[in-house]
């Protein structure tokens, strides 16, 4: 028989190679965008409107639009998602209904982003007659990030030890008061992590906002939630594929701002989670 240790070395080498094949492209992608995008960033780029058919000037309307959309999405999704997580962790029993709810969450997370766009178009833009607007786009993004918020919040709530609840009950405190004053405060870091991850996802998605809100080019800022806005991911798509002869610097700059925004949020989420794990007393 062949030497098993030699087989092991060969196998481990290939596993290491597979890992490198993922890690190196990720590093390169981030590196290229930072290296070519960072020099494009200056105050004018961040604060000015796009000029000369989006070939010069800044991307301020797109940044602001993305902030509005993300804020709207979270205002809608956080209360519903948090209450749904409380239901799953505190109230649901292990029965068919709970299983179906969990399956629905998995499915909601798996629906392709462009199908969310279709849904938002059919329901909010056409059926409710909101038109292509911040409201339609935010609601569409809100439903899309709901599963992320529910799943992470539920994990946070469930990680609070059951004994905390028992002590509270034994003191005669009602179920809701126990949740409100004992369970929730202990789960806040986890809920925050989920919320920020949801924000990052909403900020980066393009397909759901294509037909529900995103404007190709709109130099003025929105006045109400029924206005269209520009958005960073859609703007990057437009200047990469739809507008010819855009300076490479503008493209990389836009990609850098979008990537920095999304990665910054993820980093914050990771740090909160890490700190929380370190401090956890139980």
């Amino acid at each position, binding site marked *: 028989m062949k030497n098993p240790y030699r087989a092991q070395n060969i196998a481990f080498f290939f596993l290491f190679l597979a890992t490198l094949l993922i890690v190196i492209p990720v590093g390169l992608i*981030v590196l290229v965008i930072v290296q070519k995008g960072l020099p494009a960033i200056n105050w004018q780029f961040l604060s000015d409107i796009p000029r000369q058919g989006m070939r010069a000037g800044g991307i301020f309307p797109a940044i602001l639009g993305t902030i509005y959309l993300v804020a709207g999405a979270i205002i809608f999704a956080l209360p519903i998602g948090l209450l749904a997580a409380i239901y799953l962790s505190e109230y649901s029993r292990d029965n068919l209904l709970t299983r179906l709810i969990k399956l629905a969450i998995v499915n909601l997370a798996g629906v392709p982003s462009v199908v969310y766009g279709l849904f938002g178009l059919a329901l909010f833009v056409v059926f409710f007659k909101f038109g292509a607007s911040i409201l339609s786009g935010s609601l569409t993004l809100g439903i899309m990030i709901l599963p992320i918020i529910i799943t992470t919040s539920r994990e946070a709530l469930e990680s609070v030890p059951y004994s905390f609840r028992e002590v509270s009950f034994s003191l005669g405190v009602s179920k809701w008061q126990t949740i409100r004053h004992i369970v929730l405060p202990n789960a806040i870091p986890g809920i925050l992590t989920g919320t920020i991850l949801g924000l990052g996802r909403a900020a980066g998605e393009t397909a759901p906002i294509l037909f529900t809100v995103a404007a190709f080019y709109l130099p003025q800022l929105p006045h109400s939630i029924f206005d269209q806005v520009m958005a960073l991911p859609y703007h990057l798509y437009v200047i990469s594929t739809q507008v010819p002869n855009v300076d490479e610097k503008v493209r990389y700059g836009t990609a850098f701002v979008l990537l920095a925004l999304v990665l910054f949020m993820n980093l914050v989420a990771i740090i909160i989670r890490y700190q929380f794990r370190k401090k956890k007393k139980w």
Partner: protein
Amino acid sequence: MRKIKEFVIEKLILICGLASMFFVALIFLFLLKEGLAVFKNASPFKFLFGRSWYPISEPPQLGILPLILGSLLVTLGAAFISIPIGVGCAIYIAEIAPAKIKEILKAGIELLAAIPSVVLGFIGMVTLVPAVKNIFHLPTGLTALSGSIMLALMATPTIVSIAEDALYSVPRSYKEGAFALGATHWQAIWRVILPAASSGIVAAVMLGLGRVVGETMAVMMITGNAAVMPGSILAPVRTLTATIAAEMGETVVGSEHYFALFAIGIVLFIISFIVNVTADLFLHKRQQ
């Protein structure tokens, strides 16, 4: 008073708990509402297996077979690349990497999952597409192959994290038992841990490929968008998702083209539903 307040709050919690079911149903309902109208003029068979997609000709020809094959080709290519790499990386992280490196790798994978698809599409356009063009001496680098490579990268975070979970949850005693019988670490992984985690790994692969089928922006930017029957992996193709994203902006609400794009949405929804339910069954099987 307090009792009434608690009653209201608890009912509210129940309603929100049911919200995700409500939204899934709502999405499907509205896709059906807008999409089924297309079958007034074309039979479902002709829609699914028609070989030409000319939505704005007169009369429109709405056969989505080229789009289905485009999606299939790109997905198969991505599967070919991402399954060995993703599962290999998961094994490395779960079994071999030292604790510190493991944390860094996991953070790196999370980083990859967080990069917006439009950014990956852009990077693909400026780096991968010219590279494919030069290597294979093609007239254009916007091909199914470019899409497959980029999508493989997008599928790996899902595959790695779920497969790693599955490997990690194999009881320690299995491995210890193998060691006690004199197996090397690799023999223990190959003969004991991998089979024990197999249903979780299958679920991981399915969910990763589900993500590939549904991916839109990157695919639209780098596969060339030619809605013809795909000839080879080195030719431009058009996927189901890219068709919706590229054409919906130009349709009139209520036109046949508009209905047809929603019907494609129904197809995508059903695919993702099947993938997710099956993957969930596999994951559930593991827990029992």
